[in-house]
């Protein structure tokens, strides 16, 4: 833990709300650039020794994620139905945030992802828009993120990727059996599989040890520091500047605005439940695509009666969720997918929208098996087999090491009625209004998944699987997501977007929203690389603007 450096009534240069994938980048960049920074993180600050191999605690007791028992959310598909308490949003709740527990797929968006509206045209029932920036604007920051954090991959191996200014800093991770089978089948089908770019270091890098293939990767924290989270790679650098104070267990409830309409600081509950007002010259909110709009909506004031930075009513709207489906195959020989990282091969042949298909969207496919023992026994077996009893027990025993799968990461359209708002009645354990999630997939999202499922099954069958099935819990309308995107969209027009192309709120000059909330489109999921590239770009701009006195 970093020692207390700043007193609450002393205005620091920046408060960063949230120490996750984006906040970790911003905190490190701004403190390294010479600014005083206080990071307010609602979750704890874990050490590597806390990253235990305990599926029950991590997957079923929210050890590293928001605990729905303390922070319930309500859910409804449309505003016409009553919202009920039902977990809909999950995120890493700790210093490092989602970058600590994610699968670590590190895909860049493609150049055309930033220009889909121009290329594909309008989609009825959705608000598909071009980004105010291009791939070329972001490319240097993708590269910066890859080198700063430590990404393993093979540059140029994905023929659908945009141009790169530098290779990956580390070679790809060793291929797993799922990757071998996927690659063989994909090549037989004339597709273009490539080694997965992963935020896990395949070799020692900048003082961190290489991955030991322990297998507790997705949803877990890395006890080796081999996963390139902001906790492992950036937070130590931020602390080392001597200008960054990280305050864990600090849950922000309001961003305060002065009479001049400028942000003055943040009010938060500390670990003992005391309310503290930290003053700052500017605030960067990196609380994630669901908590950032919630915090803005909770930050009502005379100047902003509908919530901070929400003069146009767009805060919280256009929520995009994780979309996709899992297909599984049973193979003759053991794959032992419980070892090592989750994904070693990917393909993007079905990524681009094709008007001939009759719907918008597509997806990337990866070879994986991301079930831990209990999770597999609970829900991983084919639905046409028994789900308990002696026969089931024997089948689970036989299947676990012999199953590999293909996961589709599919498009999720930006739709105005899908949003984050405040629940009218339900409160969290701190007495704050619970998050209310309203989400229903655009029909094209579901068509894209149906299209991809056929491709996934084709790959598994071509790979020689003895039995192929679809995990039915992953199909149909999405009601639960770990990817939280699009709720404070970036754009040039202050009437239709919340932040400008530098992640600065249109309404408030000294407020920046830097996380998944600013994404205009979600491409084909796996947003972390783009969220972090945007964070590097925003931090670069914020630092320069601050030095020019323009904040």
């Amino acid at each position, binding site marked *: 833990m970093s020692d207390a450096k700043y007193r609450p009534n002393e205005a620091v240069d920046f408060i960063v709300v949230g120490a996750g994938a984006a906040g970790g980048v911003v905190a490190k960049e701004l403190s390294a650039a010479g600014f005083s920074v206080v990071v307010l993180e609602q979750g704890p600050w874990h050490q590597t020794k806390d990253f235990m191999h305990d599926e*029950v605690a991590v997957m*079923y007791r929210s050890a590293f994620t928001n605990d729905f028992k303390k922070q319930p959310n309500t859910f409804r598909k449309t505003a016409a139905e009553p919202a009920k308490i039902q977990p809909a949003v999950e995120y890493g709740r700790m210093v490092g945030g989602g970058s600590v527990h994610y699968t670590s797929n590190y895909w860049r968006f493609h150049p055309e992802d930033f220009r889909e509206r121009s290329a594909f045209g309008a989609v009825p029932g959705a608000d598909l828009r071009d980004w105010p920036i291009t791939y070329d604007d972001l490319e240097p920051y993708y590269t910066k993120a890859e080198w700063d954090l430590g990404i393993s991959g093979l540059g140029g191996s994905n023929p659908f990727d945009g141009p790169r200014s530098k290779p990956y800093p580390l070679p790809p991770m060793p*291929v797993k*059996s799922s990757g*071998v089978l996927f690659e063989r089948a994909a090549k037989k089908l004339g597709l273009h599989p490539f080694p997965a770019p992963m935020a896990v270091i395949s070799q020692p890098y900048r003082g961190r040890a290489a991955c030991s293939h322990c297998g507790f990767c997705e949803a877990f924290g890395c006890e080796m520091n081999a996963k390139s989270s902001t906790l492992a790679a950036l937070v130590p650098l931020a602390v080392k500047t001597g200008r960054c104070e990280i305050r864990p267990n600090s849950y922000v409830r309001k961003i305060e605005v002065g009479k001049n309409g400028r942000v003055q600081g943040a009010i938060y509950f500390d670990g003992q439940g005391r309310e503290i007002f930290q003053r700052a010259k500017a605030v960067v909110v990196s609380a994630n695509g669901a908590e950032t709009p919630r915090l803005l909506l909770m930050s009502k004031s005379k100047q902003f009666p509908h919530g901070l930075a929400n003069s146009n009513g767009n805060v919280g709207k256009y929520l995009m969720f994780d979309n996709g489906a899992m297909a599984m195959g049973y193979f003759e020989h053991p794959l032992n997918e419980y070892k090592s990282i989750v994904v070693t091969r990917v393909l993007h042949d079905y990524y681009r929208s094709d008007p001939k298909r009759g719907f918008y969207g597509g997806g990337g496919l990866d070879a994986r098996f991301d079930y*831990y023992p209990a999770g597999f026994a*609970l829900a991983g077996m084919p639905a046409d087999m028994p*789900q*308990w009893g002696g026969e089931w027990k024997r089948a689970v025993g036989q299947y676990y090491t012999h199953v590999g799968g293909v996961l589709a990461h599919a498009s999720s359209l930006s739709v105005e009625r899908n949003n984050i708002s405040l629940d009218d009645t339900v409160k969290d354990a701190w007495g704050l209004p619970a998050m209310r999630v309203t989400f229903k997939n655009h029909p094209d999202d579901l068509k894209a998944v149906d299209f991809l499922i056929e491709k996934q099954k084709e790959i598994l069958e071509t790979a020689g699987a003895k039995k192929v099935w679809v995990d039915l819990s992953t199909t149909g309308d999405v009601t639960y997501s770990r990817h939280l995107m699009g709720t404070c969209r970036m754009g040039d027009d202050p009437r239709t977007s919340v932040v400008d192309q530098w992640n600065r709120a249109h309404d408030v000059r000294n407020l920046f929203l830097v996380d998944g909330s600013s994404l205009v489109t979600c491409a084909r999921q796996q947003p972390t690389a783009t969220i972090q590239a945007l964070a590097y770009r925003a931090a670069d701009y914020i630092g320069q603007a601050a030095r020019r006195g323009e904040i």
Partner: protein
Amino acid sequence: MQLIFTRRDWMLAAACWAEALRAQTTAKFAWFDPATAAEIKAIAAQIIPDDDTPGADRAGVIWFIDGALAGYDRDKREIYTRGLAEAQAKRTQLFPGSMSIAGLSGAQQIQLLKAIEQTEFFQEVRRHTILGFFGHPKYGGNRDQAGWKLIGVQYSARYEPPFGYYDAEANGRNSK
């Protein structure tokens, strides 16, 4: 494979040892009364039966369930209390004169559970039984790593490639 005995392995070994010791002594349940425990134990034993390998009973799953209901999942107690009462009513209906679920024959137990398998109660007992059997042994329900052994997981804190048959084959490392 390189064998490295890490601190984590020691912790796991210590947890297993502590659990074995606990099972030998006349341990008390934290939440269950003995009669309820016997009924839930009988249900869990049909979900994951003891056959040629240990099932829920021999792996000590009831201890996991007890710990869950006494702690993190205390909000599920109502499902157990109400659900078990409903299951008993169903039992009396199906098998008049029977006294308990534990006292039914195996075939009768299966018949009863099939009749209630869509209920929230059965689904919760199934969930807890599976979490206990395949979860970390420190919770008491995966004694001697019975669950992991069943599915062929040789637990280690680290592994080296090749991991499976096909990646070994691709790297020319399978002896045929």
